[in-house]
């Protein structure tokens, strides 16, 4: 560094103890911040690398198609004629039929859910998320319109806001208990999609209401007044002059709540998720059965494969593969929300 030329420069450049302390503390803050970021990066890297190896392939089609399109199976590991064989359930049955005699006395280790793929889980998660977000959006946006456009201060509104804030703080497992007690048992839905939808929808409702209200409030008052002055009714003013401008904001918030809904495990554990189910959701006898069937879901599957089967080289693939698919799907959804919000902030400045 060249020596400071001016007096002012000299005064400023002299490292006083206060300045030195400031530098040190700022570095400490910087390190703490980046430490947090590094920890998160570690998780993304670990799961990304090990899971990516399962999901992606080096040669075309570059994606492990069977893993994404087949149902979970039991993995059979056996030593046969000096080779280690790892077979899925169906393949193993065929193999056993062919080598009936040679297989006598051969020790076969089995690991549940460690072969095949995770297709039914993906389908189940998509169904759960789609249904619950639909319910939550309808309820949430209408509530938000009421809160921002119609509500006038009063005991009802105060009580309403109190309920929303408290609802946002209720732990997800309590929502699970509630859904189990009310929908599964009292309403007798059984462990079903419908019970899961309602439980998840009610869980994200406060988030959607708060975010949508914010988006609605951000629309300048002049838009409403202009519309009302031209003789529109209140409803017309809302539908034509408020909602269209608030819609991007509402959608952003709902994308973020999709990430939240998809990521939650506790509420669906006893309301909607099955450990294993052979039929796919659309294989039902009547269309009404569709709503009253349990589904397999990705987060619950991760819980099951992480806690119920041993950790070893045979089970690692399905564990990391499932975690990878799940984490990066949710991350992609969240990323969309974050990017959308940034772009919106730049676009709508009033």
């Amino acid at each position, binding site marked *: 560094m060249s020596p400071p030329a001016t007096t002012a420069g000299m005064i400023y450049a002299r490292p006083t103890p*206060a300045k030195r302390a*400031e530098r040190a503390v700022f570095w400490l*803050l*910087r390190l703490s*911040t980046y430490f*947090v*970021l590094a*920890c*998160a990066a570690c*998780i993304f890297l*670990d799961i990304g690398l090990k899971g990516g190896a399962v999901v992606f392939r080096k040669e075309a089609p570059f994606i492990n198609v069977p893993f994404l399109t087949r149902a979970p199976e039991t993995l059979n590991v056996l030593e046969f004629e000096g080779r280690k064989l790892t077979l899925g359930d169906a393949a193993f049955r065929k193999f056993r039929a062919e080598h009936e005699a040679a297989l006598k006395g051969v020790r076969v280790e089995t690991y549940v859910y460690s072969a095949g793929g995770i297709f039914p889980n993906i389908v189940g998660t998509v169904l759960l998320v789609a249904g619950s977000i639909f319910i939550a959006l309808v*309820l949430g946006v*209408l*509530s938000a*319109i*009421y809160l921002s*456009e*119609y509500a006038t201060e009063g005991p009802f509104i105060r009580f309403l806001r109190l*309920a929303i*804030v*408290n*609802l946002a*703080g*209720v*732990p*997800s*497992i*309590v*929502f*699970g*208990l*509630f859904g*189990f007690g009310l929908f599964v*048992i009292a309403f007798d839905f059984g462990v079903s999609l419908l019970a899961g939808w309602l439980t998840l929808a009610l869980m994200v*409702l*406060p988030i959607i209401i708060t975010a949508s209200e914010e988006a609605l409030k951000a629309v300048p008052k002049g*838009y409403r007044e202009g519309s009302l002055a031209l003789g529109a*009714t*209140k409803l017309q003013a809302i539908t*034509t*002059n408020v909602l*269209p401008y608030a819609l991007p904001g509402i959608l952003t918030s709902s994308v973020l709540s999709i*990430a939240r809904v998809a*990521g*939650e*495990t*506790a509420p669906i554990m*006893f309301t909607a998720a099955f450990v294993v189910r052979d039929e796919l959701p659309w294989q039902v006898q009547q269309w009404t059965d569709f709503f009253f069937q349990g589904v397999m879901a990705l*987060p619950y599957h*991760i*819980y099951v494969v*992480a*806690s119920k089967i041993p*950790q070893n080289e045979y089970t*690692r693939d399905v*564990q990391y593969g499932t*975690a990878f698919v799940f984490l990066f799907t*949710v991350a992609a959804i*969240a990323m969309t929300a*974050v990017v959308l919000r940034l772009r919106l902030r730049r676009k709508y400045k009033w």
Partner: protein
Amino acid sequence: MPATVESLPAARPSTREALLRRRRGWFFGLTGDQVVKYVFQGNAAVSIVVLALITFTIFRDAVGFIPKNHANLVIYRLAGLEFVDLLREQVAAHSAISRYLASVRAGQLARLTKDGGLTPAEAMTRLAAFDAFANRFADTLGEHEALLGSLTDLATSLKERKKVAEDLAEARQNLLGAVAGAPPERAAALRAEADGMTIEVIDFKAEIQPLLALRPEIFAANERQRAALQELLAAPPALPVPAADRPLDKFGEFVNRYLAEMDVTARRLATWNQDRPIGWMEAFNAFAFGRQWVTASFWQDWYGVIPLLTGSLLIAFLALLIALPLGVAAAVYVNQVARPAEQRFIKPYIEFIAAIPSVVLGFFGIAMLGETLRRVSQLPGLDWVPGFPMAERLNATTAACLLALMAIPTIFSLAEDAINNVPRAYQEASLALGATRLQTIVRITVPAALSGIMAAVLLGFGRVIGETMVVLLCAGNRIAIPDLGAGFGVVFQPVHTMTGIIAQEMGEVVRGSIHYRALFMVGVVLFLISLLVNWLAQRIVRRYRISIG
């Protein structure tokens, strides 16, 4: 702006008329706008309804726990299980001393073979005197164990008979209930079957006598044990390797304490009264202050929330201990120090961390973090840390580290908001007076935002204590009150939590059983904690708004 003008239908009344006449609809005489308003309002009211329903549902299922636990405790006393447990405690205390001797022996053996350079066989011969002593000590318990065994059998069979009688009574009730809806001949058959059931009425007062008759034998055994123990204490063996903490003196202390406790137990056995009634409060206290959570046991089920509550709190505080400095530091850094480019990168990134599903974090804990932490704890340079090396790879610390990562985004964004809301004039005034940026931050900005930061921490706490999957997967799931005797090492013990127990056991319980209701009671505790945290946070935030003016 989109076009809103619609072409007017031909047959409309004149404008003036339309404006003057308020058209009332067919729907309860409401105007269209009012209908719309009520539709919106009704939707908004859903939130209130849901909160009310949650409260109602979980309280309804939880309240039934009290009478069920009351019945549970009544049988515990009537069938004499409580009486037997008094003696069991004494036997357990004796076994604990035996275990202490075994641990002393293990220490001695290690010293002899490692430091002394003896072969295991040689070391064994050096320890022979000590072993004989330990065996003689263990033998003093023989009589008590036999007594305890026969007492246990008596009480269990009594409880079993009571249970069979209850089951029969329930079956009979079901039969009689079916009578009402059945056709006549079937009803007669059902009634006959119900009448044919003989339900034993157990006279606990008389049945308990064989148990109580063993009292003199217990007291006689106590006296013989006392004599034997005093004889042992009089002639302790010499330890092959003298130890600084004088384990045998400690042993003598333990034995003397044991003897004192024996007298207390004897008095409690003598005065134990089967008729003492059990109050409703006692049934509730057995939950709220119960120190044991034991289910599906052949002996007696206990539903005490304390081990779960302490486990949850331990993990939550540990997580906050990590998340609080990091979260607040990040908030201060991003808001006050970082360049705009850094801000644009860090803020979405941390928001992104919040989106990591908890089950994935839990999986990461099982697959990577637990093992990594244990490896680190086994490094020879680190054995000065209390609790190192870790006994279990899944423990409170593993879970707390991951929970901290979940709490950091919550704390970060709320704290950053709070700091952002501090009026610029405060900082500018401070800087104008010649303070450095650090002085401004420490003396002005952070204190002004303090209540907001506190609210952030509270909400982070709420997030952490209500989190399920991470603790279920990574906390080790051992149902025990963390042993504070281990000092700081307590944070490396496996624990179980309130959220974890619900998730783990809810799938397996019989609906409506006492266990099911106990889990709902735990849910109520969680619910109340979350309401309390929210209420506190709101109070703090409200005050903070005023302070900023």
